[in-house]
C-alpha cells in the first residue's frame, strides 16, 4: 500500500508543525480549564504536567527552549513545594520516555524540583514581573549546571568545568527562553494556578493569593 501520508519534512517545517500542535494544546487546555470549577487542584496539576510534557517534547528541536522551568517555578510560587516537585518529576520522566531516559532524568527531576521548592520558599518575595524574570533567568542557569553534574558518572571531575563552559551558549538560550515564557505566560498560568489552589507552602497557608504579575 502506498504510504501517501509519509511526507518528508525539513527541520523548519517540523518545528512549525510542532508549534502549531503546541498552540492547539494550549488553546484546548485553556478551554478545558475554563469549564473546571474552582479548587480542582489535582486536575490543574495534571493539565500543567501535560502542558509541560507536550511543550518539552514539541519544542525539543530548539535546544534548551521549553516551558518546564517556568511551569515548575510558577507551581512552586502559586501552589507550593510538593506540588512543584510532583509536576517536575512527572514532566521529567514522561518527556524523557520520548526524548531519552537515563541517569540524567533523575538530575533533571531534582533540578526542577529544587527550582519549584526555591520558588515556594521565596514566593512572598517574588511579587513583581521583574523579580520573576530574574528568578527564571537564574533558574535556567541553575538547571543546566545542576544537570551537567550527571556527566561525573562517566568522566572525571576535571572535565566538568570545560563541559560547563562549552555549554554557555545553550545556558544563554535557556535563560532567554525562560524570560520569554515568563513574560508571555506567567499571568495566565498564575491566574489558573491561584484560582484552583488553596495554597499550602513551606511558609504556611495562603488562601488563593491574588496574581500580582
Amino acid at each position, binding site marked *: 500500500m502506498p504510504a501517501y501520508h509519509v511526507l518528508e519534512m525539513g527541520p523548519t517545517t517540523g518545528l512549525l508543525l510542532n508549534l502549531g500542535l503546541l498552540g492547539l494544546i494550549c488553546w484546548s487546555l485553556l478551554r478545558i480549564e475554563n469549564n473546571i470549577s474552582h479548587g480542582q487542584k489535582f486536575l490543574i496539576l495534571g493539565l500543567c504536567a501535560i502542558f509541560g510534557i507536550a511543550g518539552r517534547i514539541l519544542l525539543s528541536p530548539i*535546544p534548551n527552549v521549553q516551558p518546564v522551568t517556568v511551569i515548575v517555578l510558577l507551581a512552586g510560587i502559586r501552589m507550593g513545594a510538593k506540588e512543584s516537585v510532583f509536576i517536575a518529576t512527572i514532566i521529567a520522566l514522561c518527556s524523557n520516555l520520548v526524548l531519552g531516559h537515563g541517569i540524567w532524568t533523575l538530575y533533571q527531576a531534582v533540578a526542577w524540583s529544587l527550582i519549584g521548592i526555591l520558588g515556594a520558599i521565596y514566593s512572598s518575595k517574588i511579587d513583581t*514581573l521583574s523579580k520573576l524574570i530574574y528568578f527564571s533567568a537564574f533558574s535556567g542557569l541553575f538547571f543546566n549546571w545542576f544537570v551537567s553534574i550527571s556527566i561525573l558518572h562517566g568522566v572525571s571531575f576535571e572535565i566538568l568545568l570545560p563541559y560547563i563552559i562549552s555549554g554557555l*551558549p*545553550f545556558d544563554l*538560550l535557556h535563560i*532567554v527562553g525562560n524570560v520569554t515564557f515568563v513574560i*508571555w505566560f506567567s499571568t495566565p498560568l498564575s491566574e489558573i494556578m491561584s484560582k484552583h489552589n488553596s495554597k499550602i507552602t513551606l511558609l504556611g497557608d495562603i488562601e488563593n493569593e491574588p496574581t500580582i504579575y
Partner: protein
Amino acid sequence: MFGIVEIIFIATAFTLFSSTLFTDLKRKQAISAIWLIALIISIPLINTEWARMTNLLLDEEHSHNGLPKEWENKQVLCVHFPEDSIPSDFIEGRYHFNNVGEEVFVDSLWNNSGACIGGFTDYVNGFNFMLDATNTTGEKLEVQYSESNFGPYITSIGGYEPTGNTYWSLYHNGAESMVGIGDLEIKNDSVVVWQVATW
C-alpha cells in the same frame, strides 16, 4: 545566510520598532520574542565561535594556531585537501583526531577542509611520524608513496592523488620544507602540514 552582526542589527531594529508600536506588557512580549528568535537563529554560529574560542589555540603567531589547546607543544600532522576534492569523511571542515584516532573537534570555520592528528611526542623522523599518525584514523588518511633517490615521495593521501601540475607539498611549522618527509627532523612542537600546491 546571515552573520551574527547582521542578526543583532535586525533584532535591534525590530526592538526599536516594537518599542514605538507597543507599551507595557505587549512591548516586553514583543521584545522578548524578537530576541528569542534572533538567538535561536544565531545559536549555531554562536556555538561554533564559542567552541573555537574555548577549544582552539587562536594565535596567528603560534605554530599551533587553530589547533586544540591540549596539543600545544605536541606534534601534529595536518592534511588539507583541495576544495573540489574533499573526501566525504572531511566534508564539514577540518577534523581533529587525537593520537589514538578519536575525533576531538571539527572546525567548520577553518580555511581548509581536511584532518589534523595530534598530541604526539618524541618522534624525530617526519616520515615515521606521518605513517603512525595517519594509521590512527584507519584508512581515512591512507598514505601511498614511491621510493626515490631523495627518499619517499608521497603520491596519494586519503585517496587523493594530485594530477597535472599539482603535487602534495610539505610544510613544517608554517614554512615550506626544504627537505622531503624522509629527511625531515621534527621536534616536540612540530606541526607538519600537507597540502596540494602547483608547480
